[in-house]
């Protein structure tokens, strides 16, 4: 079976590659499809080791540095793990500030993904120029609209991240979360300044991003016409990247008026995003005790199948059969997908609807609605879920900002003391999915710290039962077409002349771009990796997060150190 790898995968966070075995599929007119996929995380930093023995409060600032793309969620999960251990709850004003911080942050994050990370592939495959990078500069934007929204997005995301900076001090890596609340005081000035910034974000999302979302939905029909002609089967974005159909979500945005509902992760019915699992049997309550991490195919030689609060790991770089630095988390031994799509499923089921009323003028742009296309998830459904999260967060940011006016002058932090011995956990949703931090404190210091992050869930290698992770399953779902056509050739099939325009734009940057997304198999043959890349990016992988390890209490690890020290 021919094989090739895509390594490095760019436009994701962290270092990642995938290895793909491909074969000609008789049912698809003998075109190549992916048979087997293996995802490899190729970096290890060992965050949990360097957290050991530190002041527990420092975890909020250090764990943010796990990932510069999603620092906020790490801070949120960490501060809640500490609050759980310290037996302290944030006051209502602090909950509102946290929600505002996170809503503004998610608009930044999802906009970046929408346009800069997955946008180029979607733009190319759907012949939608505004989402392709502005390869011809200002002229290309003016004459062809090439990269028009891509460029605009860079500007708009800055307004969102400035709102984050207003409440967090700076972005990336905010500084204002503290166990028991926040350090930043709500002032009219900050509220007004945030509203001004978020209006431009809201307008861009409600008009431009939602229009691009509809454009992709429409263009998907063109794509299906091409696959029907080439493969004999209509394969659209809703068929690409189908995974397990098991979805897991921890919940997001607690109700500041009812924090008790939030404190039990099995409940979380009043939060904007609800916790739970969704599978073929429908919705079920979330049960934290069902989480286990497996390491048979990971570079660790510690026991497999432990709960994160009891986890134990030691790195072994040359482990036989292992191929990734990520572990394999499973829920009740099953493979679960996490992310925006999981959030939609546990909160809205299969029919989604979000209002679109201008926050300052009151003008109604009409609701956005969507019905899940593929119960196992797909590129299209994940993209749609991000579009909905964008609209939802943009709306909610205003609600909370206005609400916060009633809390000015109220306490923003409740006092606490660091216990000598305690355990705690914080469960939150990063943009990419379920994020959990578990802490054990002994002698007032961190004895054990463990993070199970979205990148570990979605890009886990095979588990002890041999079941591939959600991303691997999505790649080997059966319809991952590997054309032998080049990107411009494929683009010309989708819309006559589009490929030529694209080729001109790309090769103007550098002639080498004529080979965009082309990889060589071991046979050797030149194949087009656009569709697997699209599938990988539909999960928005975040691999820096995915790789971590813990230190079992009191044990030393013998690890070969390099020449340093």
């Amino acid at each position, binding site marked *: 079976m021919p094989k090739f790898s895509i390594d490095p995968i760019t436009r994701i966070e962290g*270092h990642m590659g995938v290895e793909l075995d491909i074969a000609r599929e008789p049912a698809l007119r003998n075109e190549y499809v992916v048979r087997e996929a293996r995802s490899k995380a190729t*970096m290890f930093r060992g965050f949990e080791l360097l957290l050991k023995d530190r002041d527990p*409060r420092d975890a909020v600032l250090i764990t943010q540095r796990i*990932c510069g793309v999603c*620092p906020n969620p790490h801070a949120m999960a960490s501060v809640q793990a500490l609050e759980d251990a310290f037996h302290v709850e944030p006051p209502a004003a602090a909950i509102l500030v946290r929600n505002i911080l996170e809503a503004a942050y998610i608009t930044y994050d999802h906009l970046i993904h929408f346009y800069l990370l997955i946008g180029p592939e979607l733009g190319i495959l759907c012949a939608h120029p505004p989402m392709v990078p502005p390869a011809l500069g200002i002229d290309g934007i003016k004459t062809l609209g090439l990269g028009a929204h891509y460029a605009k997005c860079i500007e708009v995301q*800055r307004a969102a991240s400035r709102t984050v900076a207003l409440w967090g001090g700076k972005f*990336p890596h905010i500084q204002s979360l503290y166990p028991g609340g926040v*350090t*930043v005081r709500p002032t009219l000035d900050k509220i007004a300044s945030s509203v001004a910034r978020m209006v431009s974000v809201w307008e861009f999302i409600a008009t431009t991003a939602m229009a691009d979302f509809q454009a992709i939905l429409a263009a998907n029909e063109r794509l299906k016409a091409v696959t029907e002609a080439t493969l004999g089967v209509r394969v659209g974005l809703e068929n690409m990247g189908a995974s397990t159909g098991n979805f897991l979500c921890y919940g997001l945005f607690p109700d500041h008026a009812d924090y008790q509902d939030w404190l039990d992760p099995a409940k979380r019915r009043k939060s904007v995003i609800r916790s739970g699992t969704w599978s073929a049997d429908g919705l079920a309550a979330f049960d934290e005790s069902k989480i286990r991490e497996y390491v048979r195919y990971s570079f660790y030689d510690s026991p497999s199948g432990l709960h994160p609060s009891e986890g134990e790991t030691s790195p072994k770089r040359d482990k036989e059969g292992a191929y990734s630095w990520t572990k394999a988390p499973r829920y009740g031994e099953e493979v679960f997908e996490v992310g925006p799509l999981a959030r939609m499923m546990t909160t809205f089921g299969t029919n989604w609807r979000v209002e679109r009323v201008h926050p300052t003028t009151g003008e109604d742009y009409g609701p956005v609605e969507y019905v899940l296309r593929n119960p196992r998830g797909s590129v299209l459904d994940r993209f749609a879920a991000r579009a909905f999260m964008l609209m939802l967060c943009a709306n909610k940011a205003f609600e909370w900002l206005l609400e916060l006016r009633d809390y000015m002058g109220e306490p923003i932090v409740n006092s606490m003391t660091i216990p000598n011995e305690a355990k705690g956990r914080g469960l939150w949703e990063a943009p990419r999915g379920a994020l959990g931090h578990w802490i054990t404190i002994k002698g007032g210091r961190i004895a054990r710290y463990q993070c199970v992050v979205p990148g570990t869930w979605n890009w886990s290698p095979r588990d002890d039962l041999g079941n591939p992770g959600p991303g691997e399953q999505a790649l080997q779902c059966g319809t991952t077409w590997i054309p032998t056509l080049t990107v411009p050739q494929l683009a010309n099939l989708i819309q006559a002349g589009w490929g030529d325009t694209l080729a001109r734009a790309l090769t103007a940057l550098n002639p*080498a771009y004529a080979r965009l997304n082309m990889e060589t198999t071991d046979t050797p043959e030149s194949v087009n990796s656009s569709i697997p890349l699209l599938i990988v990016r539909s999960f928005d992988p975040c691999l820096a997060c995915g790789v971590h390890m813990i230190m079992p209490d009191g044990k030393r690890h013998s690890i070969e150190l390099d020449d340093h020290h």
Partner: protein
Amino acid sequence: MSLARREFLKTVGLFGAFTFIKLHKLDLIEIFAQNADYWHIYWLNGSACSGCAVSFAQATDPDLVQLLTSLTVGDSGLPIALPDYMQVIHPASGRLALDFVDVWKTGSSTKKVLIVEGAVAGEGFCEVGGRSFRDLLIEAAQQADYVIAFGSCASYGGIPAAKGSVTGAMGVAEFLRSRGITKTVINLPRCPGHPDSLVLVLASLMIGEVTELDRHGRPTAFYGMNMHETRCPYRPYYDRGIFIQRPGEFPNGPAEEGCRYKIGCKGPVTNVDCALRKWNGHVSYCVEAGAPCIGCSEPEFPDGNMAPFYQELPGLPLVLGAPAETWGLVLVGATAAGIGAHSVKRVLTRMKKAKAAKKPPSSEVEEEAVTEEGTEAKVAEEPPPSEIEEEAVTEKETEG
């Protein structure tokens, strides 16, 4: 006001980057536009979190879009600063992405900039495209005309090299030296790196200005000032002895601020211009959000003096030989008597002059040098920092 090129970074230091960029935006764009050739950029990620790349995307005036689209070489339509390879935003993946490293290597001479994000971990802990990051770094550094370590990890190892790390992570300069490569590395530490500093350093390289570096390899324009001494807007509270005692709790009700020293602020041992420059288009910075500075621009971060983050520095820096709290008590009395802060400043100045008269000649020379180099004395009416304060700070620096 037109820009004196040789004074470029010095002027930046004088105004602070934000004001400088506001004043000189057109000059800056002209600098980029006048260059007749592309500046080939290779942005290499090691043990990183991509936060520095995200931070760079927050650059303004010129922003990332301008850099990539409108600042072009002649009428070629190609961007002046062309990232041949930048993992986080690169159009290509896989083999082609790596081919672009060769495009960078064959770029025209004296136009090759290597920007490294992330620490250099031990062999086997970081791979890119099936190759060791360390090998990629060595090859690139040998080819590069300029090497910029962007962010604390690339500069000094940062968080991945923190106490307890098992990966042997270190900064770029240290690693290259251990491999016999003595090329100058321009360190732009902070966690994440500040986009303004990167844009301005690129501009200064393009006009051929030699960047003046301090003993930690940092451009003095951005790192030549102490947070606590010269730039902190909460310094008046320190001088009056008004402190926030616990994060999120304010000493005199919601209308009053307070110095962050007691909640662990590392400003007194941190040399960087955050308080002046601020972040995300001058919106805020850590201390303004009610949090302590954690000293992320210093080589010892996140250990040494910086950890634990919320722990008060050992030994309060002295104001004219007395703890600030004492001055605070004096001041409370003074304010109550309606004398106000200015009279106290006059008292301080008088005391300082009296001290200076007693100083041995050698320290006077030193102080002159500081005054000449420092910018604060020129823009502010305040007296230069006292020698005693300087000593206190220096002492702490050497401890780390």
